[in-house]
């Protein structure tokens, strides 16, 4: 379902934008206003991060947002309610991004049922490699949700194919080594990496880590289906306030 939605959107736009928020940061009301601004600005998909106390794949900006959201009282149940609220109200696909312990403690099957009931379309779980994902994959399939997996520049081509066998919806391509929020230099090696990704999967590619301005999005146009704006929109929120989000997103393409 997610893949079809992406394909349909691609017939109208030559690159899609996916943004990322940490649910409950800085507050639930503000999160709602951010989603609203992003949808108004034409964002095509959104990742909603359920905060976790140990977000090992995230850099300082998103790490801080996770901690602040938890300190402000964000719970998994409230995040689910938030997901339900926004997916009912806005007509774009919403995905959940979180770490595996959140699913594990909630009950993986129950988590998938809840996502589905809330109208969410898939999940990204960066610390769950396919080798550990049997229960998760079965639960996602049973609820018609897309389990989204990640490629990285040092993922070997055979492994990319193995990941493609279990992935649905889209493949999230990490642009470089490192955590979220650092600069990325899009070099010649990057072209080789993308062609390896393309050769390994027929799913749409979403490129993230370090995409932060119109220049980056322009560079990706024609190369991937989706540009992921993660950390940068949180920076804009922190530095310039919610009012600046809409203009920032509109200026990206």
């Amino acid at each position, binding site marked *: 379902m997610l893949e079809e939605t992406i394909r349909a959107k691609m017939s109208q736009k030559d690159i899609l934008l996916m943004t990322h928020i940490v649910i409950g940061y800085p507050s639930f009301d503000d999160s709602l206003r951010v989603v609203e601004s992003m949808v108004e600005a034409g964002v095509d998909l959104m990742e909603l991060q359920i905060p*976790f*106390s*140990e*977000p*090992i*794949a995230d*850099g300082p900006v998103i*790490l*801080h947002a996770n*901690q602040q959201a*938890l300190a402000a009282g964000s*719970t*998994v149940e409230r995040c689910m309610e938030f997901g339900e609220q926004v997916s009912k109200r806005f007509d774009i696909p919403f995905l959940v991004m979180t*770490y*595996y*312990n*959140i699913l*594990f*403690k*909630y009950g993986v099957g129950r988590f998938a049922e809840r996502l589905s009931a809330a109208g969410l379309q898939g999940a990204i779980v*960066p*610390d*769950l*490699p396919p*080798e*550990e994902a049997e229960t998760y994959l079965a639960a996602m399939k049973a609820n018609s949700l897309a389990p989204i*997996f*990640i*490629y*990285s520049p*040092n*993922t*070997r081509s055979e*492994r990319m194919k193995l*990941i493609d066998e279990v992935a649905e919806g889209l493949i999230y391509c*990490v642009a470089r*080594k*490192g*955590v979220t929020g*650092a600069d990325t230099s899009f070099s010649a090696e990057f072209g080789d990496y993308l062609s390896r990704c393309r050769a390994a999967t027929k799913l749409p590619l979403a490129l993230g880590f370090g995409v932060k301005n119109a220049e980056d999005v322009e560079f990706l146009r024609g190369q991937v289906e989706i540009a992921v704006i993660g950390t940068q929109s949180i920076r804009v929120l922190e530095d310039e306030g919610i009012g600046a989000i809409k203009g920032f997103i509109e200026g990206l393409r």
Partner: protein
Amino acid sequence: MNDRGYYGQFGGAYIPEILVATFDELTLAYESAKADPTFWQEFEELMRTYSCRPTPITFAENLTRHFGGAQIYIKREDLNHTGAHKVNNVMGQGLLIKRMGKSRVIAETGAGQHGVATATMAAKFGLECTIYMGEVDVARQRPNVFWMERLGADVVPVTHGSRTLKDAINEAFRDWVTNMDTTHYALGTVCGPHPFPAMVSWLQSIIGKEARAQMLERTNRLPHRVYACVGGGSNAMGIFSGFFEDEVELIGVEAGGRGIDSGAHAARLASKDASLGVAQGYKTFFLQDDDGQMRHTHSVAAGLDYVGVSPILSHLHEQGRVRFESATDREVVDALALTVRKEGLIPALESSHAFVQAFKEAPELSSDDILLINQSGRGDKDIFTVADAFGDPKWEQFIRDKAEQYNA
């Protein structure tokens, strides 16, 4: 699928895709070292000439008389170079780093012992070194920070989360996902994703191999009970591994902090407060809330102040092969004071947890029974914490005078 390091339902390798290739490389290096007898020979030779191995077994004659029960023996890991068992793992991983051809090493540290050992190894092997340490631990283990910096390491205080060991581990992972091409992460304990629990247990098994042989030579039999403190569990796995095949009772002692009922502790297996979870790359018992968020832990001993525990120990606990107990901060300081006065030994606050439990059990046993305690480290590093716990007025005066000199 290849061996993913499961011990019963515990363990695994829950790692971001970006690190998969790095873990494949490490697993290969570990497995080939394990299959190569010259690696272990080189490791033993290095430990013999650099770190006083084999470390002796000391008969604690005065403590034995004091408690009037079982005979108490102590395995002296405190006599290692850098003052704790941590150096066993670190020097072993140092040899692996040389085999893998990397030029930089990073590590997390709680008490600072693993950090000092890693910085020492980096100095000896000519590696760049960065140590991540929770801000809380930097404050309570300043002497170790001082030495790490003198040894050439960059010590980075970690200022988020609970600012202790788990946060230092997260931060080391964040460094590693960026710099894995040049850098090895020398994880200091038997936790984390496979192959770390297996690999660190293997390197620490040098303790148990020696201890078993030494006890047989010394007493003509094996000890009845072996005690070790458990933070992540590396010294415990080290000494226990020598006795897995024997009828020897193994007791792991966790940090009881201000008491199990207070909630301010780090007892994962000895309390009912922990539950199964997946964090820091592995599945085990964690002190976490119902949502799966990690809770704050407390211990007077920084090295035991950790939310998770070795997946291998969780498995041994579930199987009933290792018994888990806890010791409170107060009991620990009392046991330390008694050991210093009776034997002239200064166990680390971490190690003193094991002494507490042995002291509780010794009086109930007969003089035919033998107890072996792993003194995993020496307590010199704890001088600030211990002096405060004792409320030593002369020490306090000394610190005031010293501060005056700097102010002058």
